[in-house]
């Protein structure tokens, strides 16, 4: 029995470390190769020894597919390919290919340079790994080998995020990666055609959430920023370098443009700048508005947003005002003076530039910090969001937070409704949930089974799901046979099974349906005749000839649309069925009627016998 087997090595009933093994029709594919943010030991990478204890991975995997550049989807890639050892192809989209190494390098720097880890992958390994990457376009069908083919669909979420269809013969699996069903300011919505895969592997981060309209959030965000800036305050928006940062930049940029505002906006240098460069290049991957207007102006070429400049920070503006509050002793006055908006990394205020700026601005109640995403417990971001007003910084300093703290959630995952919508669009035979919490998955699984009547699975890491499939087998039919059958039947009715007589020839793993004559000819066989013969006893005292004549006239009257003939030798034929009357010697009162027909005429023959068994009508005489 053919089957599809799926084993999550990561992201099974969990968020992070996405890595799913799929075997489909003898092909093994690995979907994503991510790291886990919550761990710093071996658990941060998937356990590749599951695939093979000894021996190279290349022998076991036909290809690796990376859905997008987030580290929880591609973080373990250099480790996997260079340190564990894999030389096969790695597929990803062009933007992912471009941005992925930047993030990996950043990740490596933090792990090795900051945390001092040994035995981590090196820059060279990242480069080597990226050499194995094959980039794919949207909707391009890539032939991995003779049988395995993959195809990318747009997924929203981040620049270059894609859903992949993996197809072998008539069996297929769709892996969504992370996706977003509602468009945002820089990306469109995920879309897939009605490809009816055997299995849809979907993320389920927001399995139990139905989100409000994005517009309210955007409006609130803009209003808050605008109000603060008008008051002469400063706004700090801690973001991660990629994804949300660009969305918010576009949002603010267009708002500034529309409202004709002159207040400066800055974003922190480094990663964001480099990433913006790629956003400028990959316009086809963005949303309708950006795609349509980029001929006039590339929306990512920001007019109002400038790179953050330290010199600006030290250059006091016209409205010099000393910092309020006791917190900062070494604050450069310039930063506090004029209104402005700053995007700074990282997003959870746990380190780096965003934390520095936060410390400088926290004391002024005119300022505002907007947290656009979730914050992990223990970070400064989490503390201020939960309402803490006095923060202990390193060195026993106490920082009093007077600035306003706002929370705005801009998330780019599909919510429960969105997931259902995608499942409805693709019409899979069954669904498998990954990348979400077990409890939430449970709810969504139940809903999918109830409302869409589709089987749903949610394996834990290391647990294998086996799906039996019934792949359709193509059979060639000879044109002559098809035409003959068509001519016999009435209209060909779509989607209705039809009965067809023919011979199935299986030869070298291909199947052909031909007419029996041709089959005989091809196989060099002689045709055998198969005849059924039956005796029917008739109560009749007359002579055989007369009986035959009576039978003839009876049949003639009953079977009006068949050809009934009376042959000179006294026998009667109906089409190819032969009837002969004989008189058994022992009883002159009964006549025996021999009925003989070939197996092709089985229907007519049995009808005739049953008809004759009822007896002949009494002669009028």
């Amino acid at each position, binding site marked *: 029995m053919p089957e599809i087997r799926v084993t999550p090595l990561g992201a099974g009933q969990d968020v992070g470390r996405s890595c799913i093994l799929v075997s489909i029709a003898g092909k093994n594919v690995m979907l994503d190769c991510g790291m886990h943010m919550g761990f710093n030991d071996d658990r941060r990478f998937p356990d590749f020894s599951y695939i093979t204890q000894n021996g190279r991975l290349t022998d076991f995997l036909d290809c690796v597919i990376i859905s997008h550049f987030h580290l929880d989807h591609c973080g373990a890639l250099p480790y996997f390919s260079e340190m564990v050892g894999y030389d096969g192809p790695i597929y990803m989209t062009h933007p992912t290919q471009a941005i992925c190494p930047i993030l990996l390098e950043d990740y490596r720097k933090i792990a090795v340079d900051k945390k001092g880890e040994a035995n981590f992958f090196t820059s060279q390994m990242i480069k080597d790994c990226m050499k194995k990457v094959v980039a794919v376009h949207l909707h391009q069908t890539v032939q991995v080998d003779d049988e395995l083919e993959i195809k990318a669909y747009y997924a929203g979420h981040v620049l270059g995020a894609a859903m992949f269809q993996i197809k072998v013969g008539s069996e297929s699996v769709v892996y969504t990666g992370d996706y977003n069903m*509602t*468009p945002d*300011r820089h990306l*469109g*919505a995920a*879309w*897939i*055609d*009605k490809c009816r895969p055997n299995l849809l592997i979907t993320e389920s981060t927001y399995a*139990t*959430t*139905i*989100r*409000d*309209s*994005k*517009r*309210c*959030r*955007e*409006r*609130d965000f*803009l*209003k*808050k920023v*605008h109000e603060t800036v008008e008051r002469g305050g400063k706004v700090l928006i801690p973001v991660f370098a990629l994804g949300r940062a660009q969305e918010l930049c576009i949002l603010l940029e*267009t708002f500034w*443009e*529309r*409202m*004709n505002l002159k207040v400066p906006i800055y974003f922190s240098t480094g990663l964001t700048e480099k990433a913006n460069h790629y956003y400028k290049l990959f316009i086809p991957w963005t*949303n*309708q*508005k950006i795609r349509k207007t980029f001929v006039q102006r590339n929306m990512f070429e920001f007019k109002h947003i400038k790179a953050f400049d330290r010199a600006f920070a030290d250059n006091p503006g016209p409205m010099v005002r000393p910092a309020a509050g006791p917190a900062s002793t070494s604050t450069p006055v310039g930063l506090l003076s004029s209104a402005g908006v700053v995007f700074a990394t990282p997003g959870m205020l746990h380190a780096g530039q965003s934390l520095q700026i936060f410390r400088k601005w926290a004391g002024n109640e005119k300022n505002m910090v907007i*947290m656009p995403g979730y914050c992990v417990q223990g970070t400064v971001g989490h503390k201020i*969001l*939960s*309402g803490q007003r006095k923060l202990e910084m390193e060195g026993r300093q106490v920082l009093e937070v007077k600035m*306003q*703290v*706002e*929370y*705005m959630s801009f998330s780019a995952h599909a919510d*429960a*409704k969105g997931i*259902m*919508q995608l499942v*409805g*669009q693709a019409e899979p035979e069954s669904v498998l949930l990954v990348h979400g919490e077990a409890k*939430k998955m449970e*709810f969504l699984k*139940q*809903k999918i089974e109830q*409302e*869409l009547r589709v089987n749903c699975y949610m394996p834990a890491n290391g647990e294998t799901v086996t799906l039996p499939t019934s792949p359709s087998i193509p059979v060639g039919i000879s044109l002559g046979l098809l035409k003959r059958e068509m001519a016999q039947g009435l*209209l*060909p009715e*779509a*989607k209705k099974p039809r009965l067809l007589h023919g011979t199935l020839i299986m030869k070298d793993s291909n199947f052909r349906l031909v007419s029996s004559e041709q089959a005989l000819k091809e196989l060099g066989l002689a045709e055998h005749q198969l005849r059924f013969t039956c005796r029917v006893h008739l109560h009749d005292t007359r002579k055989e000839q007369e009986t035959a004549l009576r039978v003839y006239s009876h049949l003639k009257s009953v079977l009006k649309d068949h050809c009934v003939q009376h042959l000179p030798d006294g026998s009667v034929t109906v089409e190819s069925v032969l009837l002969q009357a004989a008189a058994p010697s022992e009883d002159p009162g009964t006549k025996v009627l021999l009925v003989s027909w070939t197996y092709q005429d089985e229907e007519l023959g049995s009808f005739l016998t049953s008809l004759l068994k009822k007896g002949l009508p009494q002669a009028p005489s």
Partner: protein
Amino acid sequence: MAAHLKKRVYEEFTKVVQPQEEIATKKLRLTKPSKSAALHIDLCKATSPADALQYLLQFARKPVEAESVEGVVRILLEHYYKENDPSVRLKIASLLGLLSKTAGFSPDCIMDDAINILQNEKSHQVLAQLLDTLLAIGTKLPENQAIQMRLVDVACKHLTDTSHGVRNKCLQLLGNLGSLEKSVTKDAEGLAARDVQKIIGDYFSDQDPRVRTAAIKAMLQLHERGLKLHQTIYNQACKLLSDDYEQVRSAAVQLIWVVSQLYPESIVPIPSSNEEIRLVDDAFGKICHMVSDGSWVVRVQAAKLLGSMEQVSSHFLEQTLDKKLMSDLRRKRTAHERAKELYSSGEFSSGRKWGDDAPKEEVDTGAVNLIESGACGAFVHGLEDEMYEVRIAAVEALCMLAQSSPSFAEKCLDFLVDMFNDEIEEVRLQSIHTMRKISNNITLREDQLDTVLAVLEDSSRDIREALHELLCCTNVSTKEGIHLALVELLKNLTKYPTDRDSIWKCLKFLGSRHPTLVLPLVPELLSTHPFFDTAEPDMDDPAYIAVLVLIFNAAKTCPTMPALFSDHTFRHYAYLRDSLSHLVPALRLPGRKLVSSAVSPSIIPQEDPSQQFLQQSLERVYSLQHLDPQGAQELLEFTIRDLQRLGELQSELAGVADFSATYLRCQLLLIKALQEKLWNVAAPLYLKQSDLASAAAKQIMEETYKMEFMYSGVENKQVVIIHHMRLQAKALQLIVTARTTRGLDPLFGMCEKFLQEVDFFQRYFIADLPHLQDSFVDKLLDLMPRLMTSKPAEVVKILQTMLRQSAFLHLPLPEQIHKASATIIEPAGESDNPLRFTSGLVVALDVDATLEHVQDPQNTVKVQVLYPDGQAQMIHPKPADFRNPGPGRHRLITQVYLSHTAWTGMPGGSEAAAGLQLQCSHSKMPLDGGW
């Protein structure tokens, strides 16, 4: 065979030509009936199918006269039978279709042939084309029932064809020609009358998506032609909604909509339950579901159609805006609900804390339905869609539904307000317009108003102006709201000073709509103090004027308000009442020398008396005929004066009054001219005395042109009279010239021209001539034969007597007449900063003008620039430069490029005029030498 055919052709057209000779062929082409012959020869000459195709293509480019169509068709058919190449046959078939469309040709004669060749045709493509030809024939003969039946039979026969193209065409034929009366008249019940709907319906499940689409389209076509579709189609169509192909789904949505409009009140069962609902509700739910379809074409289609489903029950309608929010399985309130609650609890800001939007109650997991089949959240999805086309369609649909249901209007407000922040300007503009359209049904909450007003800072002028229009007709609920609006508008004013007029106008309406809300704000707005005198604000400050406009308009219906004014306010009122009378209403101010009270009671009498007055004064004029010239002149003068005054006082009658006054003035001029003494003197010697008469003639001409073109709503009967007046002026001109010039030569030409014009008049207004009894023209036409033969001097003499004897024609008053006018807002006259430009280079000048009652401004309005050296330049603005903010009103915002190569003149004023003769002084442009 070919020789035989050739012979036939020659016989037919009795032209003996040698086809071998080049010249002969040319000759053939020149003559009329030879078209077919030429074609035939070409076709016979063609050695390969490609050649023949070329000839046919060439032939198709030229039109064929109706008389020769049949001959051409015969030749084509003959060739068709011989032709083996399907592509040539295809072209011939398509030519047949084209030819049968020729005006004046009745194609029933070729139908038999077409059906004949159809039966023997093997190629599917040619078959499809032949069916198309039959369709063309069938549509040409809509009243011939027999032919239609036959064609439908043919179509049914070919429906079983294996090619989708043929089936498509068959269905199209059925849709266009299928008999409609079957259900009505019983006499057509024979075997020929088939149930077209059933046949078409069977192809809803065809294996080819194109055929399915064609079947649905054919069904829609039947509906369009007036056949009532059966209700059973509804279920079939619903199945098609889940089709794999977008064009099928799109057409199916349309079909469902059609059926839902036909049987809105039928009851349909809900599958998997015992309940039943109205069909229109069910259809609404289904179409709503399609708003989240995978294809945006379908989404646009669905969103558009939602708007026109007005019979849907309000319960369903309101669901479209409902989306049950949930976070982590706990029920969450939407931002809109939160905003509303905050507002009612008196708090204003929102979202201070994290978890402000924290979910509240637990949700029963079993009860949550993630894919509601109903209308749930359709508009929420539609408005959030990726494609702006879908969003616009959704906004439009919202607008239409809200106009028909006030409760829905109230509900959709939050969503519309949200759309004000869309990334595409078109969508923003559309939603502002929508809001304006439904503004009668709604009152804005303060937080909504806040969002609306935030858009005032938009850098797009269109958006701001649309918003001003919206504010003009918005209801605000609180005095804080008014204050907020005023503050934001003033902010807008400082940021974009060009919006001045629009903002003032907006405040005018805001004030007059909410007098009671403005009242408590007055002391604050005027910054008056109960004890202290405050400084007098600057009268020229646009912001201060804006505040005053708001207050004065509110004071109109709030008599207690003026008591709060300080002295200088009254002075400013008097000033503004004079300078900006269209913005500041007349107030009855206590204790003041009533600035306008002497006029104001008489200004506002009811409409009827003034209308009556107009009628009376015009009737008085009609007795003109019986008065002596002196009396007539006086009467006219008085009446003209009356009318002009009336026009000034009653703005709604200004058009009529002006129009009739102009007409009377023409008459007056004519009478005056005829009173001249010069007529009594026989000799043509009085050269200088005649200038009054010729000036009068000239002026009459000018005035009549104005009457004809500068008013909207002028009907034909007025045009006749105007032309008649002009004719009189021309006669006058002729007489004057005859009297003042010596020699006959120029007179000859003029006479002839005049008579031509009379002739033209007669031909053009032949239908109206009976109304012109006793008039100048009437008499003129009586004498026409004589005039044609007489000498110029004699003509002049006749004309002169006739002019004097002719009766005064009454001008019937048109129903709706408005004087076209244009106001140039920018460039403002006498600007202090003259435009400087270097000669040879180009400078752009912004032109902003409001045009009132101009018909078809895109074609009629031009901008004229007059340079100081007298050169004039006409500039045609782009059609996109015209905006249409209201009925009868247009706004021209364009840029005019000025450039001038060196001129030697001194710096001087230059004048620009909008094309409709509305002069406006233009900024001075001293030349800043570049040479």
